[in-house]
């Protein structure tokens, strides 16, 4: 599979991330912590507390071995107990082995209930609480509600609940932000961006951000504190007996980091490709299902299945590469751990054989060494594991950074009183094709304007300029005397409504679809808008009226019905300027005539711009703008233009009337 097929997102094609970008991405992720400050502090404190009970476990086991089973008195060896054990030792100091065992058992039961001492880590259980598969997508979904907590018992339950909420809020903040940016992307960018890819970024990339917080701040901090405490305790109790052991334990962390760090760039690349190929798979699925009618009609079902199969195969393979990398690192890590453990074992048993340490001390020391080496290996791996999150988060921040139409400082708009003026406006596409050249035009309120011309003449481009979907490459558009380029895009859209030729409806009820454009509309306003658009006649026939659901993309309605509903939705906004792209193309003549009469009526108080081919539609216009190859060729009323003996418009009309 070649490289270009793998990245089938068109907008985001850069792939390398350097170290500086990594650091930037980390610090940007950390800015989200501000939103969960309280949870963050609580979580950290609770986690710190839960380190402590674990430290006592080896000492309790030592008491069982030395004082109970071996029946030695306290202070047989030189090894002192750590300070926090002293109160307990004092309590059981003079008891018989049976009584000591009873006290120890009670203590263990209490510690089990409170802190889940000696129970399996809660994190491990939570990780697989929801069944996941062997691909990046299903695993990411888990990450959004992951606890990142090792505690257990009642304390652990509380900590876990806090942690999950914190993870969720972090991840949700990022994905909501991303979703917002995506909807605000410029129209030209949206044309290039794949929907499947966007789904992947929102649903599967964004959830990996909270892990960065855990892996950079919380986990290393906890591990280092717990390791430092362990080393301190070792030093306190055994420092005199086996000083080498302390050094050995402390050397583990830098050793793991040193050995695994060179893999980080590779890890990043592997994870990036894994995610890109997952996004491609999502694209394939989304595209073929969304266009299922076309796929089936063209006999493309099998082709789509094969396309999906291939990209799914590819994404699985990419995921296996990440598994292979983990495997290699695990082998390296295990080798280091075992060598260090073996050296530690020799050091400890030397003292046991020499009699300076008891068997209970062996239990304590080997337990601690084991814990330390696990911690050290974990810290050493954080940086590597972080690369996965970096790869994912970069895909999120890429679109958060991408220029959107709301960026920049703009003025708010004054209501339009007179009309729109286009002053020498030109537009060319990003790929260099010229769509409009030197357009000068006056459009007055209370006019019905028809934009007419052959296909590809630039009619839609001209119309797109009015609501600011695209910005002129040259020239300026004025709303009254306000420059459009200086105005806030939200304000512009409050003044201009655009009704598309493709009729995009959401799969909810007709009412919901209408309310989308004006959430405050009353039922009467909705009915009035539907009446003008000629939609009322079919809505009345529907079983549930305006509460009838319309199915996916409005599939249960005919094209003409969808069109009228779209127009009604546009009218409902009640803006001074309305642009309608081919509102009558799919209508039968009777419906068209009714609609045009209604539109003409409602254009008395506003500027209505209509793109049209149908003569019957065009004729109603107060002003006709005739475009050809991106230029305005003629402007005027129908009769005036028809009066020109060799007029371009007249020729256009004559052809149609043949």
């Amino acid at each position, binding site marked *: 599979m070649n490289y270009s097929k793998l990245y089938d997102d068109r907008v985001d094609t850069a792939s390398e991330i350097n170290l500086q970008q990594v650091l930037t991405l980390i610090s940007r992720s950390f800015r989200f912590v501000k939103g969960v400050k309280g949870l963050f502090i609580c979580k950290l404190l609770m986690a710190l507390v839960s380190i402590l009970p674990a430290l006592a476990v080896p000492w309790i086991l030592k008491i069982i071995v030395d004082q109970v089973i071996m029946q030695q008195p306290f202070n047989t060896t030189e090894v002192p107990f750590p300070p926090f054990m002293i109160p307990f030792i004092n309590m059981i100091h003079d008891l018989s082995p049976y009584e000591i065992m009873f006290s120890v058992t009670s203590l263990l039961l209490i510690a089990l209930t409170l802190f889940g001492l000696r*129970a399996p880590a809660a994190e491990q259980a939570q990780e697989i609480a929801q069944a996941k598969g062997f691909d990046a997508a299903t695993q990411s979904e888990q990450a959004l509600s992951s606890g990142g907590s090792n505690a257990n018992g009642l304390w652990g339950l509380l900590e876990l609940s806090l942690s999950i909420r914190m993870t969720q809020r972090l991840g949700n903040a990022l994905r909501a932000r991303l979703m917002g940016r995506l909807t605000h992307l410029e129209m030209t960018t949206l044309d290039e961006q794949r929907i499947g890819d966007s789904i992947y970024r929102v649903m599967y990339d964004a959830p990996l951000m909270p892990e960065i917080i855990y892996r950079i701040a919380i986990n290393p901090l906890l591990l280092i504190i717990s390791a430092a405490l362990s080393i301190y305790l070792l030093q306190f109790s055994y420092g005199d007996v086996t000083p080498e052991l302390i050094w050995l334990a402390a050397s583990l962390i830098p050793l793991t980091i040193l050995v695994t760090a060179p893999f980080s760039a590779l890890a990043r690349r592997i994870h990036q490709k894994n995610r890109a190929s997952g996004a491609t798979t999502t694209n394939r699925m989304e595209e073929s299902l969304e*266009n299922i009618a076309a796929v089936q009609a063209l006999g493309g079902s099998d082709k789509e299945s094969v396309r999906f199969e291939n990209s799914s*195969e590819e994404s699985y393979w990419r995921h296996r590469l990440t598994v292979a990398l983990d495997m290699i690192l695990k082998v390296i890590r295990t080798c280091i751990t075992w060598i260090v453990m*073996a050296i530690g074992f020799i050091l400890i048993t030397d003292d046991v054989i020499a009699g300076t340490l008891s*068997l209970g001390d*062996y239990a304590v020391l080997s337990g601690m060494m084991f814990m330390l080496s696990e911690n050290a290996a974990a810290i050493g791996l954080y940086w590597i594991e972080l690369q996965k999150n970096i790869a994912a988060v970069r895909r999120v921040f890429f679109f958060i950074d991408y220029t959107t139409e709301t960026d920049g400082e703009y003025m708010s708009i004054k209501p339009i009183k007179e009309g729109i003026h286009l002053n020498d406006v030109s537009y060319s596409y990003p790929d260099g*094709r010229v769509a409009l050249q030197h357009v000068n035009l006056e459009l007055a309120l209370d006019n019905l304007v028809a934009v007419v011309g052959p296909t590809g003449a630039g009619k839609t481009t001209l119309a797109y300029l009015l609501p600011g979907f695209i910005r002129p490459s040259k020239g300026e558009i004025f709303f009254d005397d306000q420059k459009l380029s200086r105005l806030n895009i939200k304000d512009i859209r409050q003044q201009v409504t655009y009704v598309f030729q493709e009729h995009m409806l959401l799969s909810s009820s007709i009412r919901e679809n209408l309310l989308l454009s004006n959430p405050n509309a009353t039922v009467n306003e909705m009915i009035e808008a539907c009446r003008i658009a000629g939609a009322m006649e079919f809505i009345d026939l529907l079983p549930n009226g305006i509460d009838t659901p319309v199915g996916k993309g409005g599939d249960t309605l005919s094209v003409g019905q969808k069109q009228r509903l779209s127009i009604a939705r546009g009218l409902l906004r009640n803006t001074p300027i309305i642009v309608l792209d081919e509102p009558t193309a799919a*209508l039968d003549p009777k419906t068209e005539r009714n609609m045009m009469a209604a539109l003409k009526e409602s254009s008395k108080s506003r500027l209505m711009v209509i793109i049209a081919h149908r003569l019957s539609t065009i004729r109603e216009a107060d002003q006709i703008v005739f475009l050809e190859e991106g230029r305005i060729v003629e402007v005027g009323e129908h009769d005036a233009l028809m009066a020109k003996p060799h007029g371009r418009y007249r020729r256009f009309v004559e052809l149609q*009337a043949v």
Partner: protein
Amino acid sequence: MNDLDTKEALDIKAIFRLVWRCWPYYRPQLKHILTYIGCSIFIGALFFSFWFVADDLIQNKIGIGEPLQPLQAQLLLLDGSYLKGDDESKQLSEAQRKQVRANVVILALTLVFVIFIGSSPLEYYQVWIFQRVNQKLRVEMLNKAEHLSLKHHSFSRTGDAIYRIYQDSATITNVLQWLVMMPLRIILFIIMGCIILIFFSAWFALPIFVSIILSGYVMRKLLPLIRQKSRQSREYNSDLTSRIQENLSAVRVIKASGAEDIMISRFEKESQKALDAAFEMRFYNSVLLLLSILIGMGSFIITEYFMATWAITERATSLGGIVALVGYATWNIGAYQTASRQGAETSLQAWELSHTFSVAQDLTVGLKRAFYLLDLEPEVTEPAQPKMFPVSIQSIQFESVYFSYQNDNPVLAGIDLTATVGSVTAIVGGTGSGKSTLMSLLLRLYDPDHGNILVNGINLKEISLEAIKSNIAIALQQNVLFALSIRDNILYGREDFSETDVHYAAKIACANEFIETMPKGFSTELGERGGKLSTGQRQRLSIARAVLRDTPILILDEPTASLDAETEQRVMKNLTIWGRDRIIFIITHRLSTIRSADQIAFLDKGKIAEAGTHEQLMARLGPYSNFVEAEQGDAPTEKNHELF
């Protein structure tokens, strides 16, 4: 989608049925699975026996200095002097203990390096196997979705299908582990643990049984809650996926309506709902695990009290002299360590059991959602013995065809229509009169409720779907373009045509004119949904795509609505010449197109109100002539004529 019964209990039978359903997906990987399991068991057993032996060696032999057992000496390649120890104390000397230690360390490191490193590819192997299993299910699901009737798709959301194919299907990879292997492993561990512990003392069976019964009770109470939350979590996430998908595919409208903020707040609301369900599921799960660990570990800690105190009195174990390898005839420190480790391990099984059951909840919910899609019956089915599509097309006949999307709302109510070879039939009528539906029936995207469609007298239902689609081409009203190059869009689904065919088809559709002005010509990549092109351009690409297929039947659904008159006339002229030995249907409003048709079928309220040529129908002064007059408007017709 309410496809799951909330009350449905998850009994052994239901689990067995689910596992059985998954079998066909596992079957092809059986060889690999067995190899994998074999390797894993071998390595696990190796490590287990190593620790079993090592514990005794480290504690009793190196630590205290007891002499070795014969087998231990053989394993460590040590001579007979290690079996007796020092003559007086019957203990190993310090040097001997160090020698034993050195050999143990070497043995351990060898084991780790050889076995562990040698076996690490197993993990990769495992991922590979389960990905195969999942891939088979995924592909089958998408394939199913692709072939389901449009009726189904109209009422379901794309995001839901994506979620099922992606997330729900992935649960199949867990079936082997969590529904088969884990329960087996847990039972095995419990039995093994019991045997070993009972060797030490028969009393240990008691706490094991008590803890299993107690955890069983807790599970009965909590599992239904977990299952319910898991289902909610999956449903809400699936809704969220749909929300994103719909928002983005309707993003233009959202922008134009200034509805960005509304959509974002809806997104956030649904997102929060999904997160809450995920949280609650994890919370109940944690409570379950907490309770079962308290039961399991709690009873173990109490048992441990007895183990330790028996070690004080060096009470005889039930083990006696059965196992020569380990010297645990009486309770001592080594026996305590071994029994305690075994006890902890066994009591953890209660926890493992609840854990397995709670994963099983989510797993079965996911699997059911996945299989739901597979279980949907396509309404349009392949005939058992398909007939050939007629080689030379003569006629197409609609015989009193009835159709409705929803039962009470008929779209077509008795259509009778015949079209013969070499003719162009214009289908005309008001919006919503059923024109597009009629043509969908011809493609068998749906089947009629009553009546038949005949091709040369052969019922369409007796012909294979494949043959129908390769003999009928359609240019859709909603010009669907894929995010491919222009060439691939024209070829779509038919890679067997040549570059020349593509150019020829583009020429007939008058699309070559604008394609050639593009910098990359036919190789130009189109954006999402063909967003880069104007509607008229997309329309012409759709026509080119239909023409390329070179089929005997061609359907054009409003092919020219967005074309200017001049282009339209050129396209129509090309098509009429091209279509001489074919049957062409055109759905249209344009008078100029209608007038040139050989036959006009005027649809009204799901019936054919009138049929005939333009002249015949105009003379009749029926609904068609009203329609034409409306299209031409009142006076302007004369006005136009006088300009000539």
